[in-house]
């Protein structure tokens, strides 16, 4: 019993850390550009598939190389998607709904392309680290620990980027006041595209990390999209710290509900929690309106 609960807590913590990485990405786009990306889940699968392809290459045998190659690919991909699809819509009055529509179309396109290219069978990635710690019945794999620290490391790196680099500071400026940022000479269009690219990298990294545990499937991203979205709304859209707390709460909640009631209940419980939060505090845990 105690061991089981410890297992559940660990799985909650690990999933929570990866969710945090992905939710921070989603909250970042929304906070900076007010655009909602429906293809976010597909970018998650894209990350997994890119890693899968990279492992197919003969000279790649460890995750360090995979990350080294996958991050620039995702960065460029995200940048071009924003420039080609989202940016042209921005000057319209009803651009919010148009962005939702176009990203939904993109999601359908990507998901079905995965299905055609890779087939609908599940793909798996080799584990990141072998072995584990053992103490009696208790077992903690090195892979889980690695995933946890990589996700946290990703978030910390992102925080460092926001606080200490010029691009990061201009991202924060645009999030606070787009017009003001433009007046002082910050290239708004570039910041929008850069944020989109960064969030693509974050969700793609999440895809690579979680694919080792849960496989990659063409339609697997939808679940992730909804979870990242719930976390973002729960923590408050645009609030990175709120998203972080919410991700761990949701990860834990999911682990406990899944363990106690069965996996089919997790989405229902998540939804109930979300509705309650939004009814009591519509802006989410730490969010602000606007």
């Amino acid at each position, binding site marked *: 019993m105690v061991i089981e609960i410890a297992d559940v807590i660990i799985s909650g913590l690990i999933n929570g850390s990866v969710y945090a990485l992905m939710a921070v990405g989603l909250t970042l786009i929304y906070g900076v550009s007010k655009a909602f990306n429906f293809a976010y889940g597909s970018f998650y699968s894209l990350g997994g598939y890119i890693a899968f392809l990279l492992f197919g290459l003969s000279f790649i045998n460890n995750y360090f190389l995979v990350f080294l190659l996958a991050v620039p690919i995702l960065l460029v991909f995200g940048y071009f998607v924003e420039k080609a699809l989202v940016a042209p819509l921005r000057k319209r009055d009803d651009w919010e709904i148009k962005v939702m529509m176009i990203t939904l*179309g993109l*999601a359908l396109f990507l*998901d079905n392309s995965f299905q055609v290219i890779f087939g609908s069978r599940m793909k798996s990635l080799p584990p990141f680290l072998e072995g584990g710690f053992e103490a009696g019945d208790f077992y903690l794999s090195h892979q889980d620990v690695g995933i946890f620290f990589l996700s946290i490391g990703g978030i910390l790196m992102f925080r460092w980027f926001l606080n200490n680099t010029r691009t990061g500071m201009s991202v924060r400026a645009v999030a606070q006041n787009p017009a003001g940022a433009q007046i002082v000479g910050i290239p708004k269009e570039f910041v929008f595209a850069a944020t989109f690219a960064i969030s693509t990298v974050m969700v793609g990294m999440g895809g690579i990390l979680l694919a080792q545990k849960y496989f990659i499937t063409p339609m697997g991203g939808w679940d992730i999209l909804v979870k990242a979205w719930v976390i973002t709304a729960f923590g408050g859209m645009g609030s990175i710290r709120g998203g972080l707390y919410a991700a761990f709460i949701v990860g834990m909640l999911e682990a406990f509900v899944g363990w106690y009631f069965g996996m089919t209940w997790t*989405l229902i419980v998540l939804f109930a929690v979300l509705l309650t939060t939004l009814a009591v505090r519509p802006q989410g845990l730490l969010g602000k309106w606007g």
Partner: protein
Amino acid sequence: MDHRRITFLLALIWTIVAVLPLFFGGTNFIMHILIMCLIWSVVASCWDLIMGFAGIFSFGQVAFFVMGAYASAIISAQFGIPPIFAVFIAGGITAAIGILVGLPCLKLKGAYIALVTFAVHMILEPVLKGDIGRAIGTGGTRGLLTIEPMTIFGYTFTTASPVPYFYLMLLVAVICSVIILVVIKSHWGTAFLALKDSQEFSACLGVSAFKYKLMVFALTSFLTGMMGGFYAHYVGMLSTRMLGIDLFVTLMVILVIGGVGKFPGAVIGAFITIAINELLSPLGPYRPITMGAMVVILVLVLPDGIVGLFERLFSKKPHGITH
């Protein structure tokens, strides 16, 4: 567009559609597609009403449709209520759920509403497949395989001779489009415009956001649920596969082609989209890819849909002035 133009367009569309069975009446396959066009035109118009006119980003229309379909099938099977009444009861149930979903949405804005409504869509599948679903008779993962066909005054509509059902659906679609037209052009529609422009200011003028938004949730989910019922009793079987992203995007393509917030556009869009969808079916797995690419390209190239394109071509107004 003023109401005379919309009425004229609608009359034109429905007249053309009404004579189609003269040419295709013998081919069941085409009649079946036309019936689907009629059903989707109503569902898409409802979506347009709530999203394009009322400005509420509801992404739960497909969920309401499926709820209506299941509700109608279950009611007619378990309580022995004739399908023609079951359809309206199903509409009522869906409307009640619609109000329940709408209530939290009233306090929210933009993407949050999209989240709550889309979450309804996402959890509907596990609910229908799971223990709760089986308890109310959804048939779990297997779905419902024998649904009573529609019967009116002793006449039973069957899929073997779809022409009568086509005219029944045409009648329903005409009535629904008139209801939607009346809503858009009455003080409701004006209230929506005002609420979309500035909620605070219209509240000062005495326009109740609460009342109008809840009403539009109730109306659209009623009509959508009812169409779900008509669909279920026509097709005769239901499964949760309808909740896949495919149907959702098809509806979205309808709106994109027709134009969001350009009312008869959704009706025109339904016929074009379903026709394209059928024409693309030989492509097999490449069909959804093409549909996805089409959405992306159309949103960029034709942002106001076909109706918007015609408006731009025939409008004498200078560019840059809207409403």
